[in-house]
């Protein structure tokens, strides 16, 4: 039925066209913006690139962005793995735990940041508790490095562990029980089972998790911007220069585009390299 085939392809094409129009096309436009000049000269212009790279804040932003990815991924993977293993066992309260663990995924990040600000501010919850315990309480958690970086990483792990846990749990649940049973018959210990059965069979799930979470880690923006502006990110840098467009710096739009594009480039390179590396 030829007409039916056509209809199928049309239906499939609709979301594709939608995404091309509103996502791919703007992304391409973004590259052209990065080469634009405030006076509108047509020639591709590297003014924005020069200004960005001349600004020490920009290299700081790149550095911290990469550092954030490197710091959050391993730890959220570990905690996610741990929670997934826990959730795969039967125990009282498991249903409750599963229900609660979904919360960090669904809570809007701004809401969470409100409470984190109250927690780690100079007159915040954490300092109050230290005060009550008679410990030093004048701690500027969010001001001095490396403490502020550690706090941001912890906050991000809080937010992202459940997603990792659920993704890995899906992988665990696809491992047939017989494999474990036959291992038990062979007198394998818990650790041996984990190392030689669970981990290898989880590899696809872990790889997928690292890929997805890695991409998302590059996009971290609100947490450092709100809690500790001393830790710049590329998204934060782009946002700052974008808003400067109106008031202070006419090159703002182009500079924001530069930062945003380089970030996208990092993500694409990361994804490609990672997929290639793990497909061998």
């Amino acid at each position, binding site marked *: 039925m030829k007409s039916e085939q056509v209809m199928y392809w049309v239906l499939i094409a609709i979301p594709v066209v939608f995404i091309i129009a509103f996502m791919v096309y703007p992304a391409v436009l973004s590259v052209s913006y990065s080469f634009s000049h405030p006076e509108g000269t047509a020639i591709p212009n590297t003014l924005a690139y020069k200004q960005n790279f001349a600004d020490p804040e920009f290299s700081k932003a790149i550095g911290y962005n990469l550092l954030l990815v490197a710091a959050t991924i391993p730890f959220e993977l570990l905690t996610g793995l741990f929670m997934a293993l826990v959730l795969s066992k039967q125990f009282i309260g498991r249903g409750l735990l599963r229900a609660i663990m979904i919360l960090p995924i669904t809570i809007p990040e701004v809401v969470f940041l409100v409470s984190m600000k109250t927690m780690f501010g*100079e007159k915040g919850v954490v300092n109050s508790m230290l005060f009550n315990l008679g410990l030093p309480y004048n701690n*500027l958690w969010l001001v001095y490095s490396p403490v502020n970086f550690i706090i941001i990483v912890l906050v991000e792990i809080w937010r992202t562990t459940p997603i990792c846990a659920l993704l890995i749990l899906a992988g665990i649940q696809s491992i047939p029980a017989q494999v474990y049973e036959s291992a038990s018959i062979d007198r394998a210990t818990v650790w041996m089972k984990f190392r030689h059965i669970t981990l290898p069979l989880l590899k696809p799930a872990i790889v997928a998790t690292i890929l997805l979470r890695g991409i998302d880690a590059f996009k971290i923006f609100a947490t450092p911007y709100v809690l500790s502006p001393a830790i710049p990110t590329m998204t934060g840098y782009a946002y700052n220069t974008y808003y400067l467009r109106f008031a*202070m710096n006419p090159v703002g739009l182009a500079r924001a585009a530069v930062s945003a594009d380089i970030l996208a480039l990092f993500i694409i390179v990361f994804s490609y390299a990672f997929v290639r590396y793990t497909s061998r």
Partner: protein
Amino acid sequence: MSVGNKTMDWVLVVLLIVTIIVSGVGIYYTSTVMDKLSEVSDAVDAIAEAMGVTPPTKGKITWYAAILESEYPYYRPIVEEFEETYNIDVDVVFYGGAWAELLDKLKAEVMADYGVADVVTIDDFFLPTAKDYVADLTSYIDTWGEWDQLYAGKRDPGEIGGKKYFVGWRADCLTTYVNIEKFDDNGLTWNDTSTMNDLLAAAETIYNNEGTGRIGMKAKKYEGLTCEIAIFIKAYGGNYTTFNSTANVQAFALLKQLGPYLHPSSNTWDEGTIPAEMTTETIYFDFNWPYQADMIKTAEMSDVIKIFPTPNGTVGRGTTVGGGYLAISNASRHKDDAWKFIQFLASKRGQYLQLQHIGWLPIREDAWTELQSKDPDKYDLLSPYGESAKYILPRPAVEEYTQLSSLWQDVFWDIVFDQKDAQATLDAAQADWKTISGS
């Protein structure tokens, strides 16, 4: 899953999608229809008026005001007094803090020669840009004769190229807030005659006692830092357009010494964030606009945090001013009535009412005198502002003001946070400014 559940899920999903589509369409059409309707009714009114069909009624003017709807209950008595005294209705359109949007609207109306606004409020920043879209008020003002009674620092920027376009609305300026209890705990005092050197000494003492700086400044780039810089450079006799004058170098030499004793988060603070730092006693000293006084009252710290005029330098005090100006749209169809409104707001009576009802600082000294006789307590609380307002360093009326401002902020960060040499940094900035201003 039982069949019942599946049906419910399906019903809910369908309902959801239908609601979405209906509401989306509804909103879109409602808003566009409402806009069209109001345009039509305005057009009809205009035609009727032009044809003289409508009988002469009360005068009516439209005011694009940078007021929040939530503030208006406090402002309403002022407008109502005008309406009753002059028999002119005032239709207030709220723009809150959206000064730029207001200006854009004004420009659009003037260029289309379709005037809805009569009186507009223009931010101090935008005066050179807005000049081409507002009416020349020189003849009105000269007839009024009270121009010279206004604070010079606020008044003079309203005159551009020998013509008077803008009349000050309020003279919000910065002054000093001190937590006298915490100062006392550190063995320090502060009063009206305290100087910049006193500030430096206090900052150092507190830092040594408490291990962290407790002096706050709104130093976030690129926001209101330039306003705080004015306090220092004016106190030493400097100005905005000559970066490396001896006076400015002196001012920044002091600021450089102050740098290490500032609270480390100062470089992230702005108008919105710093008041809470004062009320939670994270800092014991800052400079701020009058709204901070309200916040201190809300936090019930009025006995603890007191207001003082700005510290003295070698020449005197200094402050900067904001608050906006009043002007008449070039496309206004009721210029005479609009002027009456501006004149009312700028009179001693109008300025006193603003001070009394909503706590805005007046643009003239006699309003303070009025407050002193009518409400001595409020006068005692706010009068330090009146003192500071005599020493306003006006914003220079240059086209490249925004670049000038960011240059000053860069200078501040280099000298105060990065501890670079004051003379060298200011010399470099002067060279940059010459390039930007083309002078």
